């Protein structure tokens, strides 16, 4: 059924070729297995573990990620064929991002977890990273869904592991139910695609979609994509599907919230890019622009997401809720890039989107990391007012946090500014009315957003510190601080020399 070569490859060839494409993921998943298997043996029956065990698991986790990095740097771009996996430039980019995020999240998780549960938590995190990669690597509807679930299922565990109070339970249950619902929507959409195309191979689907004969088929593709967009909107927290985010962010630890603020977005947008381009028959992302209907849907989602995220963030007093709404708003900015698409007449919207995803990841993980570093495991920072006076009690943390927050608000000496500028340029140079409206809404929302980010800065530097904090907690979370330093530095570096990131983000367009 697939396009066959002259000498039919044996099953070993196929397996060899397929595994060759996923070496970084194999490394990660092997480590996951090792952790799950060995972890319980190091913990006593009552759940007591030798003190400092979490450091060992953390180091193992970092080691696995570094090996995956090495494997990633050796991957090459291959033409997608009949196999279950592919390795194009989008894969290369997303892998790089997810592995970097994996390292940062491991550092964040480091001191947020008991010694007894560290093995499982780190294993879940690695599985999530592997799943993120699988979504992009997938050359098959089944593998796409497999990747999505490999992200979701460990997430449920990871949310409940660090803390098991009622709030965390409520948050996990909420996330669990809505995630299942969204997976069902995606799966239903994928089944429609299979129904029309008669195959699950993405390359074949693209070929089939390129010469659709009947309007019925075209319409069915649209319905399928509508379902997929709806299902994935849950992951990227686009607006009608965002309800869970503030509650979940509020309930879980800041390391889990950090993961939720970035990884699902990366997964969602890479899946959307892949599935949308394929089901409109685009052979590569370079030539894919959303059709009028899809663009309209994406634009409506983007506008609603930006406004709801930013306006609701204005009134928040809980910092994690505020960051949840901020992450919703940023999903809206990214949707602008998706709605513009490849944009044949100017700045590529897809490149702008991918650039923004990267820089957003660094900034948001940085804010969460520094929030973790500013609090302690027993009394984490929950309320916005607890930030007050941080500029005096913990000057380094506050300064780094200010850099990341300025980045999120899109003010100049940070990469966030260039990210928004690219999106804006892409939307404006597209030429269609929808895109221009998006550009204007983006600008308006940048202003609204700036006001609550500014409030955070103001609290840190202008308010006197609250009495309990004036003693200054000891530096209990050094790993998170290291992650925060990296993020703040990256935010500034991307501003000073952005070319390499932009080239990486456009590379996929050449695939």
């Amino acid at each position, binding site marked *: 059924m697939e396009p066959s070569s002259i000498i039919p490859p044996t099953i070993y060839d196929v397996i060899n070729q397929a595994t060759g494409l996923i070496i970084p993921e194999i490394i990660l998943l092997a480590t996951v297995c090792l952790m799950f298997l060995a972890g319980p043996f190091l913990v006593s029956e009552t759940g007591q573990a030798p003190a400092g065990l979490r450091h060992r698991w953390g180091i193992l986790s970092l080691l696995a990620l570094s090996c995956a990095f090495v494997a990633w740097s050796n991957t090459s771009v291959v033409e997608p064929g009949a196999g279950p996996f592919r390795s194009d430039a989008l894969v290369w980019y997303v892998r790089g991002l997810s592995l970097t995020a994996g390292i940062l999240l491991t550092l964040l998780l480091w001191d947020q977890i008991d010694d007894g549960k560290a093995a499982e938590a780190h294993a879940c995190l690695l599985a999530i990273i592997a799943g993120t990669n699988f979504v992009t690597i997938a050359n098959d509807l089944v593998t796409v869904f497999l990747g999505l679930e490999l992200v979701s299922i460990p997430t449920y565990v990871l949310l409940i592991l660090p803390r098991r109070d009622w709030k965390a339970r409520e948050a996990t249950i909420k996330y669990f139910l809505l995630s299942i619902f969204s997976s069902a929507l995606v799966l239903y959409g994928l089944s429609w695609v299979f129904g029309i195309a008669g195959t699950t191979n993405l390359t074949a689907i693209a070929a089939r979609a390129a010469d659709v004969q009947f309007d019925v088929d075209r319409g069915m593709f649209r319905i399928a994509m509508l379902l997929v967009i709806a299902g994935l909107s849950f992951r990227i927290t686009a607006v009608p599907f965002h309800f869970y985010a503030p509650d979940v962010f509020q309930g879980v630890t800041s390391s889990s919230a950090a993961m939720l603020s970035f990884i699902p977005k990366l997964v969602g947008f890479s899946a959307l890019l892949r599935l949308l381009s394929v089901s409109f028959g685009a052979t590569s*992302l*370079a*030539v894919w622009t959303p059709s009028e209907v899809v663009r309209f849907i994406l634009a409506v989602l983007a506008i609603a997401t930006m406004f709801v995220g930013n306006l609701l963030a204005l009134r928040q007093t809980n910092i994690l809720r505020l960051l949840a709404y901020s992450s919703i708003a940023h999903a809206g900015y990214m949707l602008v890039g998706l709605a513009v698409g*490849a*944009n*044949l*007449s*100017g*700045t*590529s919207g*897809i*490149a702008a989107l991918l650039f923004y995803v990267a820089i957003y990841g660094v900034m948001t993980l940085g804010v969460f990391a520094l929030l973790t570093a500013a609090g302690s495991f027993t009394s984490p920072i929950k309320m916005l007012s607890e930030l007050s006076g941080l500029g005096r009690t913990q000057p380094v943390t506050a300064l780094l946090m200010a850099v990341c927050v300025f980045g999120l608000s899109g*003010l*100049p*000496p940070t990469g966030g*500014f*260039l990210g928004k*500028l*690219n999106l*804006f*340029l892409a939307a*404006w*140079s597209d*030429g269609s009315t929808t895109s221009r409206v998006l*550009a*204007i809404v983006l*600008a308006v929302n*940048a*202003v609204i957003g*700036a*006001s609550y980010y*500014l409030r955070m800065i*103001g609290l840190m*530097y*202008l308010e006197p510190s609250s009495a309990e904090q004036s003693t200054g907690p000891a530096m209990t979370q050094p790993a998170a601080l290291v992650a925060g330093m990296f993020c703040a530095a990256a935010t500034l570096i991307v501003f000073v*020399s*952005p*070319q390499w990131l*932009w080239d990486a983000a*456009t590379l996929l*367009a*050449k695939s």
Partner: protein
Amino acid sequence: MIALLFLSLAVPFASAVLLMLFRGSLNQTSSRLLALSGSVATLFLSLLLLAQYKTVVLKPLETGNRPAVSSASEASAIRPRAEFRHEWLKITDSSGKVTARLEMYFGLDGISVALIALTTLLTVSSVLISWEAISDRASEFYAALLILETGLIGVFCSMDLVMFYVFFELTLIPLFFLIAIWGGPDRRKAAVRFFLYTLAGSLITLSGLVALVAWVARAGLTSPTSLPALADWLAANPLPQALQISFFLALSAGFLVKVPVFPFHTWLPLAHVEAPTAGSVLLAGVLLKLGTYGFLRLCLPMFPDACRVVGLPMIGLLSVIGILYGSFCALSQRDIKKLVAYSSVAHLGFCMLGLFALNTEGITGGVLQMVNHGLSTGALFLIVGMIYERYHTRMLDDIGGLAKRLPLIACSMVFISMSSIGLPGLNGFVGEFLSLAGMFRSSPVYAVLATAGVVLGAWYLLTAVQLAFFGTLREPHQDDSHGHPHVITDLNAREFTALAPLAALCLWLGVFPASLIELIEPDVAALSALYQDAPPVPVAVNPVSGLVPAAVPVPQVLSLSQRIIVAD
């Protein structure tokens, strides 16, 4: 020359970083010494820059062999005479074709050199005036001041739209902190209002800029953010008038707020009143110039049609209203600082009138007025700060006859007021005269109305001087809070050092304005060439008009006006 420029960007920034890094171990004395040495070093660098500009750039210009230091074409309306370019970000479309090339592009022309010198001079005065007044978190205060200086210098030497905007915004943050932490009783409100008001304006500007860049990039210019290239391209391919007007209005939004032009000035009096003296000096002296500089650098060269059709009538009218309204408001103030703040609204009205006269005299007058206002209003704020430091009040009702107690301060106040009023022989006269003369050629009605502002200016400033410094001596009681009588001393050496250079320059520029005019003349000529041979109300614009080189009549007109001034 570029090395000097980088040094003058790096020195204040490095001093600020040092101040922030060692703020724990620096006490008030060492931090202010560090700040002073940083700002004085920057001043010297900028003076060197000025001297070198005069010898390296202007001398060859007179003799005719122009050095090829700039990549911009001869006829360009914006032509940096020395420049530094570094590729920053090439934005590509999906096939890898470059659609927009962002650059780190710094360049210098006469206008920027003059304004950089003004900035560094006022920063030194600001540091000196804060010497005793700022004792709380001194190192952070000076760090903010020096970062502000870096941002201001950066704006004046940016030749790339994005860099321009980056520095433009960068100035907001330190000034926000200066007002919010070290300001008066109502500082939080003032700081937030200042920040949000200007940010809202400049974000509209940003939208306009990006829309312009996107439009131009679509039309085929691959370096759409380079100011000289953009100005050249727009001169060769003029945009349709409607489009020009919409870009012009969008870009103006941020500048109108910053200047501030009449209906957008409401943030200014509060910000000035609440800001610490150093903040007021830099806010009035340089920060407001960012608005006028924005008009001069972006709007005038790029949208000639829009400037004629919308700029001259609309912004001219608003400026005239601003002059009259600001003067009347100043007249009714009892707080001297607020009075000076409102006088800024009026004075910048003259500056805007000059720029939008759209001819050589007008633009020259506008630029002169930018420098003059920086000097005289900066000095006025310094004096108000000195009085406040001594009496802890600025109310005209509480003080009077201070000339008996503080003869030297009174003397300088009278001198600076004369300069601000525009007494012939002092700097204010030259700028106002040229602005009004230029406007008279473009729109006599506005010029006549604005002239009334000169009279009003004399009225409110002289009234204030008379109330505060002459008549019977009235001083607020000072001895209750500390238990011992407060000794009021006259101008001390530190304050004299802060004030004297400004006063000396006021006199110098009044007697010998040609020294400044010849610095900016080539750039103003290139700019006004765009407006030379077009009809006053354009119906069809000659696309070639932008390419006519600085023509013969320009220097003639200028030397004529110069003669008038010198003869006076």
